[in-house]
Every structure is written in C-alpha cells, then in structure tokens.
C-alpha cells in the first residue's frame, strides 16, 4: 500500500503501457486534459465504463489511481500523488431529472453549483454543501461532506439513493434504487459516502431531492446554543467566531413564530458565513453536547483561528494560518476521549507527517480492510487515504 504524499509506482507497472493501451482503444479520451492535477497520467473519461477500463488496466499493471472532481477535498486523508489521475470533467451531466418524483440522477463529475442551479429552476434542492466552490457531486459524496442544513435534512449520505460505481476490479456496479424508501439488499450506495474513492469511482448518483421551502430566513443571535433550544427543526444553527446564526425555513407564519420564540428579527434568505479559506484546516467532530467545550478549547489556542461550528450537529471546521502540532494533538486526544475525532482537512505535507490525517483508526478496522480488499483487490485506488492506512 502507498503512504500518502509519496506517489510513485506500486508494482513496477508502466505508464507508457497504459497510455498506449488507452490511446489505442479509447480515442475519445484526452489524456492530458485536467489542468493542475499532478500525476504521471491524467485522463478524463467520458463514460463510467471507460473509467472502469482505466481502473482495470491500472490494477493489472499495478499503477495507483486517484480521482479528481473539483479538487476541493483532496486534503482529506492527505494529498496523494498517484500514478494515474481520473478527472471527472467528462462525467458531468444531468442524466435523468424527475422533479415530480423528487429524484435526480446526475453524473458524479457535475459541479454542485450547476446542479443546484438546474434544480432551483424547478424550486427544488439536493441539499448539498452551500458553498461548494468547484466541488462536484461525486467528489462531495466521496468526501463525506455535508451541508450546514444537515441539522434539518440530515447529512449528504441520507440523500444518496443509488450509485454507479467503477470498482477497483474494473467493473461498473449499480447499487441502491431510484426510490426514496428502499430495503432491497445491502446499502452499498450509502457506503460510498465518505469512502474517499477507496472502493471505486462514483460514476453517477441518484439523489433524493427536497422542495425549496416557501421562505427562508436568518436570525443573528448572541448565544447560538441557547437559541437552538428555542426553535423547532431549524435548518441550521451556526456559531462563527463568536457570532451565532439560526437558519429557518417554512411558511412565513412558521418563520415568524420561530423568530418570535428566539426574540430577534429574521432577515430574509439564508446568509451563510464566509467559507474558511485558511491554509490549515481541521474538522473537530464531537457529540453535540460537547461542542461548546470544543469551541472553548480552540478559542484558547495561541494562534488566531477562525471557526464554523454547527450547533446540534457537533462538527466544527477550524482554520488557521499556522498549525501548532502540540495543540492539535492535545485537541485530538480530547475529541477522541469524547468519542469523536479531529480530522486534518488540509495543511502542509509536514503536518500530515507529524500529526497524521485521522488520528486513532476506528475499532472496525479489520472489517474495513476486508471491504477495501474486496473492492480494490490490487490496492490501487487512492491507497492509504483512509484511516489505518487503507
């Protein structure tokens, strides 16, 4: 298995062979298309089957494969340099949108912003991260990233109904179904959420949609935690650098009633705080009841930080210009003692080396290893990205 950040060749395969093979067989591929992605061989397949073929060949010759969508979450698990980089720009359309059914089937490489724009025209939303930047649907799901509105609608994985997956053994697998209630077989579709490309490439996904609420509003508060107790099913409750925000949605009467319960005015629309843009970013994850303590902890750090804490969820993204490894280690130990984790979202290569991306691997490691081996027998897909070096 490769360790993050080392790139290189796994089993003595040849880049020339894959380039030649694909050039011969897939004229549609544009091997050098994909901007800033660094790899020996970069390709942007136009179909999931093509992607599976590339993976199959890479597995045969022992070349590592990484996946790139919008490049927004590459830091999770460490920035890997793989031999082959599959870029999903070629898999970027809406396949089947059924507004009446509240489902949409979309290519994994479609940028979230584009998808939400399409859905918005019909007054619907896939409830994906609100500030996606260039993030793609598939990449976001693979990264396990969720919107702020998860407090009301659940994490992103709750909306993944069906996935087509190009596995590490070069097959295209369809998992799940295009229905919102499903007890048919094993939920491989949901397993893809947060899998970081380690069991396959998400070629397309069917998402459960929600209608846009009648109206939305934002209420600024001093004490986010206290406000959280006053309202019922808010979309989100955030604390960003000391300032609290409650996000509401529903009929105007509902919003008025809820804002009234808080006792502060409601401004129309969902006004999210600016995204964290710091070079070093961590995600602190603790049980919701421990979030206040987590906030206090990071605010006590020596270096200045900026944070976005999700009240009621227990997740907090913290950004800083420079990392103090000891403080991070200490915070991680504390978070883990609460049953949570401190995850390195991004930072320099040294930081990954000294701190480690994930912390203590989960107790189910042996089962996770077996799943990884089952779906990636050659061990070529984003090797080493997952906790425990999987």
């Amino acid at each position: 298995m490769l360790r993050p950040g080392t790139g290189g060749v796994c089993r003595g395969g040849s880049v020339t062979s894959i380039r030649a093979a694909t050039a011969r067989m897939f004229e549609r591929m544009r091997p050098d298309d994909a901007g800033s992605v660094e790899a020996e061989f970069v390709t942007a397949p136009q179909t999931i089957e093509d992607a599976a073929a590339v993976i199959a060949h890479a597995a045969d010759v022992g070349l590592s494969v990484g996946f790139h969508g919008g490049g927004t979450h590459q830091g999770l698990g460490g920035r890997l340099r793989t031999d082959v980089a599959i870029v999903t720009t070629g898999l970027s359309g809406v396949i089947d949108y059924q507004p009446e059914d509240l489902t949409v089937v979309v290519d994994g490489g479609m940028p979230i912003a584009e998808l939400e724009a399409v859905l918005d025209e019909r007054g619907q939303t896939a409830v994906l991260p609100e500030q996606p930047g260039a993030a793609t649907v598939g990449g976001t799901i693979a990264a396990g990233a969720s919107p702020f509105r998860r407090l009301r609608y659940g994490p992103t994985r709750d909306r993944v109904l069906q996935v087509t997956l190009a596995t590490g053994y070069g097959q295209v697998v369809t998992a799940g179904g295009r229905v919102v209630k499903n007890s048919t077989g094993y939920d491989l579709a949901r397993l893809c959420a947060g899998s970081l490309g380690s069991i396959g490439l998400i070629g397309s996904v069917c998402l459960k949609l929600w209608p846009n609420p009648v109206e939305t509003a934002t209420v600024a508060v001093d004490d986010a935690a206290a406000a959280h107790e006053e309202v019922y099913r808010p979309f989100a409750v955030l604390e960003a650098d000391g300032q609290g925000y409650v996000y509401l949605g529903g009929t105007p009467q509902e919003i008025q009633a809820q804002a009234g319960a808080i006792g502060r005015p409601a401004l129309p629309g969902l006004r999210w705080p600016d995204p964290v843009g710091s070079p070093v970013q961590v995600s602190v994850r603790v049980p919701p009841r421990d979030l206040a303590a987590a906030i206090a902890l990071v605010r006590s750090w020596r270096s200045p930080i900026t944070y976005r804490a999700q009240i009621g969820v227990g997740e907090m993204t913290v950004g800083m210009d420079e990392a103090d490894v000891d403080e991070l280690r200490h915070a991680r130990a504390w978070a883990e003692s609460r049953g949570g984790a401190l995850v390195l979202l991004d930072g320099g290569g040294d930081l990954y080396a000294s701190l480690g991306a994930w912390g203590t691997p989960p107790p189910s490691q042996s089962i996770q290893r077996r799943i990884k081996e089952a779906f990636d027998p050659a061990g070529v897909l984003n090797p080493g990205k997952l906790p425990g070096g999987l």
Partner: protein
Amino acid sequence: MGAPYSRSMDLIAELQDVVGPDRLRHHPLDLHVFSRDAGVTAGPVAAVVFPETTDEVAGCIRVAARLGVPVVTRGAGTGLAGGAVPTEPSLLIVMTKMDAVESVDTVGRTAWVGPGVINLDLSRRLDHLGLHFAPDPSSQQSCTVGGNVGTNAGGPHCLADGTTTAHVLAVEIVTADGEVTVVGGEAPDPIGLDLRAVVVGSEGTIGVVTRILVRLTENPPSVRTLLVAFPDIAGAAGTVSDIIAAGVVPAALEMMDNPMVRAVENYVHAGYPVDAAAVLLAEVVGFADGVTAEAELIEGIARRRGATDVRIAADDEERELIWKGRKSAFGAVAQNAPDYYLHDTVVPRTKLVDVLTAVYEIGERHGLTLLNVFHAGDGNLHPLVSFDAEKPGMTERVVAAAKEMVEVSVDAGGTLSGEHGIGLEKRDLMGSVFSDIDLDAQARLRDAFDSSGLLNPDKVLPEGSRCFDRAPGAFAAVGP
C-alpha cells in the same frame, strides 16, 4: 453437517454453559412455536436462546460457529419476508430480553438501546422528555428496534424523517467469529468507511446487533392532521404532487383506496368517508401558527384538485381517531376473510397511480380481493390481499399475483422492497433488479463481514451471488 443427534446434544450442552438452562429452549414444541415469524414460511429450529448480554450473544455465536450450526436472529417475530425463519436447522437467538434504554442524552438527542426494545415502547418511554423514535412502521407496537435495524424499517412518518438508516448513529455488533465491534458513534461523520450503512438493512446476515445508538427526534410543538376525501384517485395523487411542489413536505402523507376505506370504517367507525374513491391522510408539524398555515395550504390545494371533504382534527382525540383508521388496516381486512397477505412494493412516486391500476388488474385476473393503503409521499405501496387459505388453490393464486405485482413495480422503475426487506420471500427476485455484477458486489460486502455463511444464510442474496472475479488480462472483455 455431521450426525444430527450428537451435534444437537453438543449444541444444547454448550449453549447451556453460556446462557444457563432457563434461557435455552429445545423442546420440540418450543422449536415448533419458533419456526415461524409473521410471514408465510416456516423453518427448522435446532435450539432457541434468550441472551441478556452481548457476551452471551458472542458466546452463543462461538458455539454455533464451532459446531457449524447456522445462526438466525429474531426480535418479536413480526417480519413478513421470512428474515427470522431458518432454512436449515439453526440456532435462533431471540433478542427480546435485551431491551434496556440507557444513556439518554436529551441535549444530543440520542440513546443507547437494546435491540429487544419494542419500537413504540421506546417512544413512549421517552415521551416525558419530549422525544420519540421517528421510524413508525404499522407494526410498531410489537416490532423491536433491532428488527427495524435489520430491515431498514419505514413507516408513515418516514416521508419527512427518513427510514431507520437515518436514525442509527452507531451499532454494536457481534460478527460470525464472535468478535464484538462498535461501528459509528455519537460524533458526526465517523472516520473511515461508514459500516453503519451496511449493517442497517442487512437482515441479520452480517452480524447480530446487540446495542444501537439511536437518533431521537424532538416531539413537535404542534401537529395538524387532515383527512381528505377525493372522488377520484388522480385527484388525490395530484394533490400530493402539488403539496410538494408548493415546498411543503408533510410529516406524513398516507392514501387509502375505497375498498380499504370501507373496510376500515366498518371496523373502527372513525368517520372515514365511505364514498370517496381515495382518502388522503396528511399530517404537518411545527409551531402553532406554522401548522395552521400549512394545513390551510394543503386544504386549498386539495379543494382545487376536487376534494369533496376536508376534515382537520380539532384535538388530540380526533387526531387519534383519524390515525386509528389508518392503523387498523389489518383488522379491517381481516373482517372480510380469514387470511390476508400484505405486499410491499415501492415505485417512483409519480408511477403510483399507474402501478395501482396495474395492481387492480392483476387482482382481478387472479380473482382476488384487493385493498390498498400506501405511503403516498414516497411511492411505497401496500396492496393487501384478503383471502381464505382454506379454499383450494387460493394461496397459489396469491403468491402468483405477488410475483406479478413485484414485476410491475420493477418495470415502473421501482425496486423489490420499500420497508419489509428481502428475507427469503424476495431473495430469488433480486436478479430482476440487480445484474450478476451488482449481486457479486453485494456479496463481497456481505463476505467482508461474514464469509462463513454462518449468519442467516440463504437470505437476501440468491445462491451463487459471489461469482464474479475479473480475471487479470481480460481487459479486452471490458470495453465501451
């Protein structure tokens, strides 16, 4: 498997070492009583144990593994797909005694519960804290949370709240090797692969669930329940579409057809409109002013779609009565004929009316009496066939009709089960919705947990699912 006599003697003796004589059953009468769940199949039971701790569960599994006896897990035995029915003489692990509710966190809204807690009991026990467990299958007064995890159970309120998988934060499982593992946790987004997703809906085939960290839902400050009568099904279906298009997702949206309404009204006298072609039961939750506004919105839409009567429950008592009608579907149907068969089909919501029409046609062709109740918001259709099993050939017709209904649903873009699970009942139909490659992938997932086939074998996946191995160098076979 070896000489049955000596094997079973060993089994009993060794199990007795784990759980003691009082929580072990092996008398033929007990084994007979445990050979069925609420479905139509029965199977052979070698022994029954009632463990009280995770250690006991692990101990029993180790015994079974050593002796090569398959293990089947059972809650209250309300499953309809044969998930708790063995296909060969098996050890039945009954989880009803593991019914603790512990570590209730009212801030985080979570609780650790034993798999044997009855679904409705859990909500009742938490009511005074203003919390409940959202998945509410119709069998909730009897079924256990462990069973809900096994089948990814749903219920009317899953429209807005999601099915069981959205309400499980962690599970403690004992795998086939007798090892105890916790997957997930109280903190959001546990690192690593999300194994909770695999456990929920795995129907006892990859581990025995011994503790569950459930996500609890706040009781709504206010509720409004409506009962709306329509002169035609299209009107009811159209209303559902319009409600959602208006940006409102009600807490529940249930529909019943005329035969069902008549049967229900005859049984519980809840004031259901017996002349309606279809009845819509809608429920909205929120703050008082908000629910009133939403209820009015729904009423407006319904009337524009031709509703002949809109009844909004004035108080809790009336709300109970309206729901009583919906929840008495079984009882109502049982008045018609001694037996009934409850189907579970799920289709894209917009195909509901088409599939319903096809279902009626299937019923007519097979000479069956059909009554329908469905979760209108999420396309989950439950045709209920009312029949007398004593009549010759009747059961065969019911089974044949069931198969056709599944086919129609799959053709309409649906899948095999919305909430009951695959079990034994639909195992051999998996090929109609999944290719060999798809089934192979699911088998890989299952085998990563249990490749011995010890746990609930012969369920969910058809035999030979784990078949596909891509031979190296067969690159040419995989092409555009």
